[in-house]
């Protein structure tokens, strides 16, 4: 069981809801993934189109915990405002603090992320900050009281996978709250690797929504995360420089 704040999850896959080809494919992917946590963004509504569909109308809202992000925020103040807007819906359970500090790389602003996390924690929110893979920053977020730490594997939507597994390992080793690897996952192998490193969960979006078959990829990710977690719990063998036969070296029949 994964515990974040007062919530418990059987699934260790958190799924984003952006950029699916259409709502039907999206619903299929969400169903197949067996995720219990969905992320969303908050944006202005088109007030001139009363018929605009919304994905929330397609799903059974009560089956999921909602993790709205503060994407679009460039500083702590904007992030707090977006979190409060999301919270006013009455649908949200947690908040993903996301303060982008660089529009080209979409890497997070560490100072503003810390500030926003502190403010929202003081207001009683369950806060999951999206952060870079900086080990000290992760520790400081935890010291503030963040309910989980969400380091990026690589830039958002890049699909580059885990570019600094060592940092991620350090973050996981020091953390006493769950570590959810967020952003940059491209393939099931990346997701499994994150879990094998000891991550408590994986948040992904583009890797599924942008896949040739999002439904099939959702299933692949689900299995990869389960597999990686099992492997972590089982404890992998140590790497050795040289071969070590798995068959007995004694009693080899020579025929002579």
């Amino acid at each position: 069981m994964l515990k974040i704040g007062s919530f418990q999850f059987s699934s260790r896959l958190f799924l984003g809801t952006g950029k699916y080809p259409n709502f039907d494919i999206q619903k299929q992917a969400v169903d197949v993934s067996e995720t219990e946590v969905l992320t969303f963004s908050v944006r202005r509504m088109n007030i001139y189109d009363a018929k605009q569909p919304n994905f929330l109308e397609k799903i059974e809202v009560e089956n999921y915990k909602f993790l709205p992000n503060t994407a679009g925020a460039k500083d702590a103040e904007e992030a707090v405002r977006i979190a409060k807007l999301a919270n006013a819906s009455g649908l949200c359970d947690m908040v993903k603090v996301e303060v982008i500090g660089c529009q080209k790389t979409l890497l997070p602003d560490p100072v503003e992320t810390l500030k926003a996390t502190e403010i929202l924690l003081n207001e009683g929110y369950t806060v999951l900050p999206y952060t870079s893979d900086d080990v000290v920053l992760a520790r400081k977020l935890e010291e503030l009281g963040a309910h989980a730490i969400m380091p990026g594997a690589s830039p958002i939507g890049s699909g580059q996978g885990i570019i600094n597994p060592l940092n991620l390992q350090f973050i996981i080793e020091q953390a006493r709250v769950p570590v959810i690897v967020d952003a940059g996952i491209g393939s099931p192998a990346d997701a499994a690797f994150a879990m094998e490193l000891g991550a408590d969960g994986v948040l992904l979006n583009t890797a599924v929504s942008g896949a040739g078959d999002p439904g099939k990829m959702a299933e692949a990710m689900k299995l990869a995360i389960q597999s990686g977690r099992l492997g972590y719990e089982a404890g992998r063998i140590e790497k050795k420089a040289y071969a070590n036969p798995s068959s007995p070296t004694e009693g080899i029949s020579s025929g002579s």
Partner: protein
Amino acid sequence: MKINGDVITVEDNNKTVEHVIAHLGLEAKSLIVEHNQHILKKEEHPETLVTDGDRLEIVHFVGGG
């Protein structure tokens, strides 16, 4: 009044935020309203009075990661 940055004229009988949402045909939608930079809970929509020059921000959830 200004709604999502656009100047919108509504008739005088639209006295509350709830009325304005209905005027826009958005009453069935899951949405969040900020009235003059004050974020409203849904139950505050019928009791929040609007007047000339007010600013409303109407937002909702969209896909995101």
